[in-house]
């Protein structure tokens, strides 16, 4: 039976959908020349409402809709994170859309719809529902990637993302079909029972491999990462901030559920290899990039690799480390892309490294903000990135993955170089002539940046509470 409490357990999804639909309807009613800012604020209120709904929902843990959705600390963690990211992205989009002269309220609606899919991904415990949620989030982001309609690069980014994304989901779906065939169910907890009952047919292994391929595309882990730099380079910068973090977080949540809650076998070595490859390829390719968005794209591949290290650690500490890493990474990356989007100006003109030369002199606050995010990406203390790496490495060390940790440590040292290059350019080189103009930071973007900086530092100074919460979620998963 469906009870009232079932609806509470999907409350954030409902709230986001309602706001998204409202935005779409109002968009149609607005005269074409009218400002779309109010729609943006409506979207922001929607994300805040989703945050509130998440908090409210935390009091009603349990299964809903015939065991298809499960609300527990694990899903609450990701709900909160995704809604928070969506709020930040909405805030940092106002100014960007103005600068690019994009007048389309559906932009905000799509962000909310995307968030619906991602939120649902993290609480769904039924594979077909996960697939549908994945598609909801993907289809919105495909469109968002092409939102700079007049820029050929943006359209190109969109089509690449669309083709490779659908290609990957087909793999995921085939995996779902096979696991359904092998176990007779698509519910993660039923699958777990069957698998623990000792049914390890070749089909299960194939299914896990196929699902890993599908999700691997979404999280941009090597060797499924080739689309990432192109898509990130072409897509609008705030959208990249969104799609490099929130869908990834959701996809990691799915992967964690499949690997640990469903206790599927045979994923250890693929994950190990993928982690090592992602870190190495991502970091080495990032070394030679001139375009900041491409550089951050490769960096995000590398970070997916660090995250997979935590997966390979395969214990409750590994899961909580992965969750913490997702959160820390999401915050610093959203922040970094917010700065990039502000600095890029009309037509995304200023996105090469050269353009950042002398930024420390011309715009000290903006440069300092970006520096904090970059330091966090390197993993320097008092930033969230440090504890994220720390937890991952110590989880891996406790599981005796010495080689993987060595690869990761060497990679972090390599990575320090290209992040530092940006900092060095900003502070220690003079701007080229004529220097790119830097507009003043608008209030919403300023709030978004302040929030991300504060959150990054908070995770770097007092990681305890977030980690505790993540550990609670992790404990539920390994049970």
């Amino acid at each position: 039976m469906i009870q009232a409490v079932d609806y509470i357990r999907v409350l954030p999804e409902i709230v986001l959908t309602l706001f998204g639909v409202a935005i779409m309807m109002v968009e149609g009613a607005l005269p074409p020349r009218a400002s779309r800012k109010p729609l943006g604020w409506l979207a922001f209120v929607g994300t805040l409402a989703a945050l509130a709904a998440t908090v409210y929902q935390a009091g009603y843990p349990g299964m809903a809709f015939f065991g298809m959705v499960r609300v527990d600390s694990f899903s609450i963690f990701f709900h909160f994170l995704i809604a928070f990211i969506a709020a930040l992205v909405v805030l940092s989009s106002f100014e960007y859309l103005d600068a690019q002269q994009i007048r389309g309220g559906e932009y905000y609606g799509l962000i909310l719809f995307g968030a619906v899919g991602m939120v649902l991904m993290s609480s769904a415990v039924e594979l077909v529902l996960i697939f549908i949620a994945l598609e909801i989030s993907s289809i919105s982001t495909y469109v968002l990637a092409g939102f700079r309609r007049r820029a050929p690069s943006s359209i190109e980014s969109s089509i690449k993302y669309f083709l490779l994304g659908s290609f990957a989901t087909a793999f995921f779906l085939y995996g779902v079909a096979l696991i359904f065939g092998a176990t007779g169910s698509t519910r993660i907890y039923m699958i777990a029972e069957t698998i623990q009952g000792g049914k390890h047919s070749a089909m299960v292994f194939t299914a896990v491999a196929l699902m890993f391929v599908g999700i691997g595309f979404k999280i941009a882990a090597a060797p499924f990462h080739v689309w990432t730099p192109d898509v990130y380079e072409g897509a609008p910068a705030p959208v990249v901030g969104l799609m490099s973090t929130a869908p990834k977080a959701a996809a990691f949540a799915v992967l964690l559920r499949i690997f640990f809650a469903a206790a599927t076998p045979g994923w250890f070595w693929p994950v190990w290899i993928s982690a090592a490859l992602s870190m190495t390829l991502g970091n080495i390719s990032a070394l030679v990039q001139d375009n900041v968005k491409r550089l951050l794209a490769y960096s995000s591949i590398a970070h997916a690799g660090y995250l997979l290290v935590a997966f390979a650690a395969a214990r409750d500490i590994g899961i909580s480390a992965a969750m913490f890493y997702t959160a820390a990474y999401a915050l610093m990356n959203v922040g970094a892309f917010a700065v990039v989007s502000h600095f890029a100006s009309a037509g995304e003109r200023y996105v090469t490294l050269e353009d950042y030369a002398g930024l420390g002199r011309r715009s000290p606050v903006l440069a300092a903000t970006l520096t904090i995010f970059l330091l966090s990406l390197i993993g320097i203390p008092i930033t969230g990135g440090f504890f994220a790496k720390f937890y991952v490495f110590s989880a891996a060390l406790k599981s005796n993955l010495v080689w993987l940790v060595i690869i990761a440590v060497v990679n972090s040292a390599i990575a320090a170089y290209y992040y530092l290059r940006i900092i060095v350019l900003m502070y220690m080189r003079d701007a080229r002539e004529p220097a790119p103009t830097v507009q003043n930071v608008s209030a919403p973007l300023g709030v978004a940046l302040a929030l991300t900086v504060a959150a990054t530092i908070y995770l770097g100074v007092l990681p305890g509470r977030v980690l505790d919460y993540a550990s609670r979620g992790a404990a539920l998963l390994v049970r």
Partner: protein
Amino acid sequence: MSAAILTLVTFVPLAGALLMMFFPRRDELARWFALVVTLLGFVLSLHLPLHFTRAASGFQFEINIQWISSPNIHYHLGVDGISMWLVVLTTFLSPLCVLISWKSVHERVKEFFILLLILETALIGVFVSLDLFLFYFFWEASLIPMALIIGMYGHERRVYAAVKFFLFTMIGSVFMLAAIIWLYARTGSFEYTAIQRAMQSGQIGWEAALWCFLGFFLAFAVKVPIFPLHTWLPDAHFEAPTAGSVLLAGVLLKMGTYGLLRFNLGLFPEQAREHAPWIITLAIIGIIYGALVAMVQPNLKKLVAYSSVSHLGFVVLGIFSFTQAGVDGAVYQMLAHGVSTGALFMLVGILYERRHTFEISEFGGLATPMPVYATFFMIIMLSSVGLPLLNGFVGEFLVLSGAFQAKAVYGILAATGVIWSACYLLWTYQRVFFGKVNRDANAVLPDISARERIALWPTALAAVAMGVAPLLWLNAIEPAVRAVLSPLAQMAEGLVR
């Protein structure tokens, strides 16, 4: 009060820096504010020696609060006789750095002082942390402001120097982090004393402990720097602005020697004893090599930088002699070197402000236009040489006597270093200050201003005071050193025989 004092001393500069971020961009305001904050820090830090129980050997003014539950990280601060003086040294040099940068830093002034204050907090934090994690935290934190100070305010090749500095120390400290995490994984604690107990109880295998020892050693050896790893130092010093050099030589290098003493000796006494011979060899090579390179250096600032390599060789030698006198002397030498080399860099910086060059051949006969400056230079230079009744003497004497006790040949070789340093410093002094004024530009150089005088007097007074009344410092250092050496006592005996 005594529980909060270390927190106060550590974080007052940081609080000042945070406040300053919200200030309007007025250079004069930033300067005065930085001066007030650093002076406040110094006054607060004086509380430590005044209320320190000198006979006791353990940590004092301790504060221990759980900071993060998983991993089990504590906010654990405390000082013993060794670290207390290093804290005071840091707070003592900081206001002088502000004074000496008053005019020489003229653009992005606010940012400069913010960085300086953040750096001060990080440096103090390194010395007061008793939790390995916290220690690492401050250790890394000190890296960024220093690299930025070099890279933003330095001379022509500043970016190269800053990146080199950053990468050298970063790579070194990654190994230390690995060792720290490994120790945590085995002992379940980051606490210095807890890990020390675990080591003494033999909970950790000899082989594994050796790897940890080497991890720590590499990080500290880069920082000191010990001979083959020193190449970042001359570049960093040469390119850094004066205040950067003062803190670099005065405090940052001491982080390395302090770490060697506290962690390599304190946690891994057996491994330290086993590996002392080659470390001492490197130290002695450093002493002689640094002195010889300084001798042929045409550049005044690089000369002082190389003299640092030489003097810190003494400190390492003293630490690894495992004798009471040697380690006492090493600690004393750290303080003395901080004061006198800090002052030397200030003096060189003052000259640079006037002539915009560090080439020794550009100067000559400066005693005529700048008599007061020449006098200060003389005092500081003599203290660096190690003249009796000045601070350098006490440290070097103790280190040498410790080295002789350990093995005569160490003492003899190191003693030549003293002679070398007398040679190059006196010779430099003669070339720069005596003789006829050889350049027209030099004839009209103004003598030091009141502000510069205020910056120099404390160092000169400290140099004399530390030379005349060493016991004031040593009676706090000795018990702490004895505590560090106690597990080594029998082993050190073996080394003497």
